């Protein structure tokens, strides 16, 4: 299916997007996820649909245990849905195997994990260098240093994760997500461990990127200030996404 033809039909069904004349960067339809724990099956997501356009900023809110991390993982192709259809960069993920999905992500998708997932044996700099090594370039080192500088860790390049505070580790994870110049960045509670001032600086960075490079942002957050700055706010409830009004977000 050609993405240019579908874009015009889809744009009418979505509302507040600023780039609705482009093909959607991410499209989920009737997504469902069940997991088995023991002999009981637990439904985390059911019949969930979502369309995101390039350059959009989307915030996902929801109670603890609502399934936000699960959803983000699914959308990034880190896991396979139990049902439904998912397209990333216009390509259907169902048609791709694990390998194909990885290739689709390479250099284009960034991810900030809720629990950071830094390699304990690598220094901050080496952790940030890791995704760059998949697409080697002469200026890798400089780029990694630059990003660590931007998140305020220019002096901590050679420190191991366990020598860094929780917030500092989170900032390394952020640097690592952005260093490849990804088009689409998923961030699971990116400011969860940061003090308001640092959180504010990081948020500034994110939105500056969004403005300058058109990076699409999908954020899971409990921070309403952050959510309010996004183009769209969605609440994950009962396994489905519902649009939130500005008042709801402000509340």
């Amino acid at each position, binding site marked *: 299916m050609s993405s240019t033809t579908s874009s015009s039909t889809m744009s009418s069904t979505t509302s507040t997007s600023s780039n609705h004349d482009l093909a959607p960067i991410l499209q989920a339809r009737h997504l469902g996820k069940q997991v088995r724990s023991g002999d009981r099956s637990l439904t985390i997501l059911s019949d969930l649909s979502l369309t995101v356009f390039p350059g959009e900023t989307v915030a996902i809110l929801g109670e603890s245990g609502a399934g936000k991390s699960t959803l983000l993982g699914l959308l990034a192709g*880190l*896991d396979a849905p139990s049902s439904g259809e998912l397209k990333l960069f216009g390509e259907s993920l169902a048609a791709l195997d694990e390998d194909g999905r990885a290739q689709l992500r*390479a250099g284009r998708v960034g*991810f900030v994990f809720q629990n950071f997932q830094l*390699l304990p044996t690598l220094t901050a700099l080496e952790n940030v260098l890791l995704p760059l090594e998949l697409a080697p370039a002469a200026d890798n080192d400089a780029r990694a240093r630059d990003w660590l500088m931007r998140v305020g860790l220019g002096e901590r390049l050679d420190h191991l994760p*366990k020598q860094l505070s929780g917030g500092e580790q989170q900032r390394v994870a952020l640097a690592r997500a952005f260093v490849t110049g990804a088009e689409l960045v998923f961030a699971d509670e990116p400011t969860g461990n940061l003090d308001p001032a640092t959180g504010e600086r990081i948020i500034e960075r994110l939105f500056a990127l969004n403005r300058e490079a058109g990076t699409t942002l999908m954020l899971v957050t409990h921070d309403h200030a952050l959510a309010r700055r996004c183009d769209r706010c969605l609440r994950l409830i009962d396994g489905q996404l519902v649009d939130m009004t500005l008042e709801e977000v402000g509340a």
Partner: protein
Amino acid sequence: MMASGDSRRDTRRTWGNGLHWLGLAARGLKRDLRAADVRALFVALALAVAASTMIGFFLDRLERGLTRQAGQMLGGDLVLEQGEPFSSELKSTLREAGLTLSDQVDLVSMISRGERFQPASLKVVDSAYPLYGASRVDVGNGVEPLPRGPAPGEAWVDPRLESLIGLQLGDEVRVGRTTLTVSGIIEREADQSGGFSSFNPRLMMHVDDLAATGLVQPGSRVEYEILAAGPPAAVSSLDARLAALKRDGVEVRDVRVDRPGLGRALERAEKYLALAGLAAVLLAGVAVAMATRRYVDRHLDTAALLRCFGASQRQLTRLFALQLGWLALAASVCGALLGLAGQAGLLALLTAFLPLELPPPGPLPLALGVLTALAVLVGFAGPTLLRLKRVSALKVLRRELDPLPASAWLVVAMASLVFGGLMWLYSGDLWLSAALLVGGLVMLVILGGVGMLLLSGVLRLAALLPQGSHGSSPTRALRLGARQLGRRRQASLGQLLAFAVTFAAMAMIGLVRGDLLTAWQDQLPEDTPNYFAINIQPQERDAFVETLAGAVDDRTALYPMVRGRITALNGQAPQEAVPESGRGSNALRRELNLTWRDTLPEGNRLVAGEWFGPGDTVSGAEASSNDAANAGDRAATEPSDKVVPISLEGELADRLGLALGDTMSFTIGADTLTGRITSLRDLDWDSFRPNFYVIFPPGVLELFGHTYITAFHLGDAQSPLPGQIVENFPAVSLLNVEAILGQVRELLTQVTRSVELVLGFVLLAGISVLYAALIASRPLRAHESGLLRVFGAGDRLISRVQGAEFAILGLASGLMGALLAELAAAGIYAGWLDLAPRLHPWLWIGLPLGGALLVGLIGHGLSRSLRRQTPMASLGLLGES
């Protein structure tokens, strides 16, 4: 009152506490079994137990089996021999000690068939003969094994007697004053008792017929033997009595000491098997050490939390010690069962080759196995575990507050101490164990340095590699793999050392095996002489050499032989001159065979002094002789105390307490001759060649009556040569030792098989250890590859990166292993196995390549399942991490 009540309550509380902790530990362990490192720990411990029990069981049974076989060759576990009948008092003492006895009489006598006479070596046996094994005899139905001797009235004879005097089955043969019926043709006797010293053809008969022969008269040369069979403990209980017998001039052959013809081969084989057992234990220890590191890393958080909740250091220690105690117990049981099953399997395999009946497994190896497991746990895991108790509660908040890793020195020191102890236990040689240990530690330090250099070298090399143009180009994978390896420097170094030690142990066991086999083959090469010819008269010498020429190897040499008795050492009576331990030596009681020669005989090695130079070749004039008439006019012009140079065999020199420069006097016939020791020789008594304790330079012994002896190899069983010799040289005794040679070779083959089987087991143990170690490092690699996948790395790239990493790891550790193995093997050869060290060039190629392949394959296999997982699962975003 108060005090006692308090203490009772205290006791109860401690008890309740103890049970509580025991349960807590068990539950913790059960939860832990899901973790790869605990499983690896379990596997490694079980392997250590399995290895040591299996090799222990096997060695124990083989040792006892081989001893029995050696006993069979000797005729019993204990053989006593003297020139007169043994007292019934001695016999009952031996029986009371738990030995089964068989009496035997050996003598040389003329036998005849019709008008044809022949001297024969009579072996007179009783109904208890043989104590072990069976003779191979043809009693009319072809050759068959018979576990008995001839019945009264019958005789079994050497097949040579047919050609000598036409003796055949059913014939009558006259022995002394009686006549026996030939009822069997002997292919091989059950034992070698009685020896082949007489070189005459054998005739076996029953002891009941001995009196009727009338051969036993006062003054006749008869040897009486008692052959005794029984457990080693029974023989040991007689040690004091045996020593007294030896002082009285009784010849005592003890299977524990005198293993006929095979001494060195068997000794080496046993040492080898023990070495292999140690190698397996070392390998398991290395795996335990690796698994423990991860175990501790993983439990630091738990420990910190428990500290938060108020656990004391003691309680923590107790909890984790108990937890591992449970693990060790379970692993010991599993390992012991595995070891038991393994040795049964080994033996089932082996008995196909072994006509050797092995005694059932004893309990000792089992105890040794469990002891080994505990020692390995304490030694290889102890110091690392102590880290857990030093955790501070604050670590829950500040992750960098990990207690310092146990000092590498402490870990190595503790492990070495324990391993050294095990080595001592296994080898029974304190000094050797200490030397090996110190050598090993020095090596480890050097290897650590080399490893660091190698790793940084790898990192630097990786940076130089071309970037690689497309997604998963090999050079890029190599670059990435090398980087990952270089970055995890500490962990990589640990693995590098562990794998190097593993490869070295595997290679060493392989190397030593190869060199052992070569040594055994060298000992009895294809062309080992299978015929001895003795009593060649000087005037027949040239004709005899001519007869041999062309038919046998030209290295075949004729040795002149003069019989002489030692009468003085350094001018003193021998019994006073020698150390106490040498007093019972045969060399002092019997006549020695002396020879002369201008070159060192084949198979002899000079260990001290110098071989005769041209100046030493004494012209007849310089010989010292007291018998002027015999020496003619020459003796008159020379002083009678003139001393000639001689060369003495080294072991005899030790026994008699002689060194270079000492003098020995011999009585030859009516003459006395004195020699000064100018060289000491080492020679191989198992070589089936004529060997001499004392060699003179030419020009001394020629004056005395002498005959010649030679040994030669005859490849063709149909050769007419033996017939020609018997016909043309009637005075010459020709002895075919092919049968004995075959028996020795067979035993060597059996030992070789067992060595090969054990080698196979060590290789397996090594592989399992690699496996266990790689499993333990899997979580970290899983995390890495999961992340790479999130960043968009494909299957090909991930597997190539990991493959490259494993290959580099294997290559580097193989290289280091080769270094270690070469040095260790050299040490072991020189210090323990009594073999000449040599360089093994292929090792330096084979081990790195083999290492890369092996680690690569195992690593690849292990990471396959990881690659199929979704990143969500392999990162453990929800499950355990």
